[in-house]
């Protein structure tokens, strides 16, 4: 399995370092979901930031839930605010 999944709150400076980024894949997603490269450095990082391990399905469900809420918020906007090309309806996506 190339990636592993967790939730963790980004505490700011030092939450992930340049060395972390060079040692394993890392990407942040809505709902404090993090996709982490599944190697020893990635697993060590999850422990360091007190991450809560999730299955891919669990992580995907969290992200989907956040996006569904954003979609509902967007749907409730006045039509004029839906028109700009920089305010398109949020779209669900598949975690890597």
């Amino acid at each position, binding site marked *: 399995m190339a990636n592993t999944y967790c939730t963790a709150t*980004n*505490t*700011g*400076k*030092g*939450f*992930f*370092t*340049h*060395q*972390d*980024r*060079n040692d394993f894949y*890392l*990407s*942040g997603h*809505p709902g404090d979901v993090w996709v982490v490269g599944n190697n020893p450095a990635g697993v060590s990082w999850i422990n360091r930031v007190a991450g809560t391990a999730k299955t891919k399905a669990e992580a995907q469900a969290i992200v989907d839930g*956040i996006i569904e809420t*954003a979609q509902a918020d967007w749907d409730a906007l*006045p039509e*004029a*605010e839906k*028109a*700009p*090309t*920089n*305010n*398109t309806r*949020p*779209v669900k996506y598949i975690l890597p």
Partner: protein
Amino acid sequence: MATYKGIKGVKVETKASDPTASEADGTVWYNSTGATLKYAIAGAGAWASGGNMTTARHYVNAARNAPQSASLVFAGYNSGARDETEKYNGTAWTEVNDLNTARAGPGGSGTQTAALCMSGTPYSPDSNARTSNVEEFNGTSWSEKNNVVTASAWMGSLGTNTAAMMIAGDSGGGTATTMSQTWNGTSWTEGNNLVSGAVAGNSSTGSTTAGLNAGAESAPYKACQTYNGTSWTEVNNTNLNHSYATMFGTQGAAILAAEYPAGTVVEEWDGTSWAAVAALATGRYGLAGTGSSNAGVVMGGGPSPSNVTEEWTSPVYAVKTVTVS
């Protein structure tokens, strides 16, 4: 058998602890504590987390000439236009005096102690509204300055508080523009237009005599142009789209980061062409950035208003252990 002294002319130094990686770049030493042979190298650039902003928002801008460790972010959008201003010290953000006019998607220039916030949208009554208002920050508070010639939002901006530019952007109703306006410390004048077509959601960096502009929310998506103080010239395109992104650095060495609506893509400009470099950890748009192509910082952004900061460092130095197998 070749020896280290034979190759380098010196013996391998013995050290009880590892030196700083950047200072030891290119050298080898024997760590007597760990009984290991070590070396330091310069690796590719990478992003690390920075301190979180105190107020999450997107469509922010910044004092574009500020360094990584002394940035200034202002304005933005989160349930309406924002007036918050925050200073960064390389570790944490601190809120300081607010703008007089709340706005989103403004231009920005200058430093943490001498900045300019120009135009943008007050989001009142809606995002099509524009303000011509310009404010100057003196390190403590904001004061009113002469208005821009033509109001815009989501434009490129660059320069200092006494020599700045506002480049293209959306003049309202989704109308992309080609205009460039120059600030001389007192007033704004119209300059020569961009040559690649109208753009909004573009990004700029550099100075009023050596500027760089790239990115757009619509065609020409990947166009890149340089400015010589008088006119714009087309140069090599970006490889990827970068709308509502941010750019920091100079005309000769810049970083262009992010893409609407949640792109992590980053490219580096070497004065001639663009090349992909390490991606952001958190995809976003409507962020701001300051610093150089060696040491920069980006902050804020959407889709959900974010307080996340990431710091760019290139190269990243590392201490490695020599392994023999």
